[in-house]
C-alpha cells in the first residue's frame, strides 16, 4: 500500500506503525512519531494500524535554540 513518510511516497507491505518503521529503515531509538498529525507514543506503535494514504511524520533530536 502507498503511504507518505516525511513527505516522501513509500510502497510498503507492513500494516502497523512499528513494522512500517522497520520496513522503511527508521530503526533509531531516538525518534518520535505522528500519524496524520496525531501523536503516536512509542509504546502504542505496535498496535497502531496504518492505512493506505496515511501520512507518517518521524522526528528526531536536532540542534535548537
Amino acid at each position, binding site marked *: 500500500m502507498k503511504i507518505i513518510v516525511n513527505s516522501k511516497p513509500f510502497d510498503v507491505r507492513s500494516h502497523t506503525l512499528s513494522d512500517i518503521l522497520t520496513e*522503511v529503515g*527508521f*530503526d533509531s531509538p531516538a525518534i518520535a512519531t505522528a500519524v496524520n498529525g*496525531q501523536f503516536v507514543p512509542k509504546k502504542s506503535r505496535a498496535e497502531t494500524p496504518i492505512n493506505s494514504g496515511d501520512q507518517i511524520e*518521524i*522526528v528526531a*533530536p536536532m540542534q*535548537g*535554540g
Partner: protein
Amino acid sequence: MRIYETDIATPLLLGTAQYPSPKVLQNAIKAAGCEIVTVSLRRETAQGTGAGFWDVIRQTGAKILPNTAGCHTAREAITTAQMARDIFETDWIKLEVIGHADNLQPDVFELVHAARVLSADGFKVFPYMTDDLVVGEKLIEAGCKVLMPWGAPIGSGQGLRNPDALRAMRAHFPDIPLIVDAGIGRPSDAAAAMEIGMDAVLLNTAVAKAGDPVQMARAMAMAVRAGRTGYQAGPMERRDVAVPSTPVLGLAELV
C-alpha cells in the same frame, strides 16, 4: 534559581544550534558551566542523524529543554511537545508558538492556549513570550511557573529593546522566575538583563556565531554572574548632575 523544583546554579541557558562543530558546542557548554540546553525536533533522515546529535548532548550532562521552535499554532506546538516528551523523557518544554514571520514574535493567544493544554497534561512549560504583563498573568493562570520574555527578536543580537517592560515584569511577578529568552548579543546585554532582576538568560546565536564561541560562552557566564550580584547588591540611583566623589571639605586653597 529554582525552576520547577530544580535548583540551577548557573543562570545561563544555551541553545545548541549554529555552532561550528559538535566539539565546539560541547566545549562552550562546559566553559559556561551551563546546566540546561535547548534542543529541537526535526524530521529524521534514514541515516539516523538524530541519535548522533543526542549522544553529543548527553555527553555534556546538561539537562535537556526541548523546544517547539517553528510551530505556528497551538495544535502543532502541543503535538511537538508530546513527541519531545516521548523522545527525551522529560516533561520540560520550551513553548514557542511563532506569530509573525518577520520578527518571530510569539502568537500569545495560541501560546496561552497551548500552555493551558500542556500544563493540564503534566508538562512543565517554559513559555517564550513578549514582555507583556497581561500575557504573563494568563500564562501563570494556565499553569506556567516560569516566564521567558524576549529581550529582542530571535537571532537579532540587539540586546534589551525594552528594559522598562522587563523591570515592570520583575515588579509585577516578584516570585516567578523570569528568563530573558532571545535577542542577547553581547555579554553586556546579558549582564544588563540580570542587573534589572531577571533570574536567568537564554541565548544561542550570541555564543554560536561569536568568533570564538567557547570564549564567548565563558564571557556570558561571567556576565550573568556579575549582573546577578550587582542586582543583589542594589545599584545606586541615577543622578542628572555630577556630584564629586572626592570630599570637598578640606580642599587646599591654592589660588
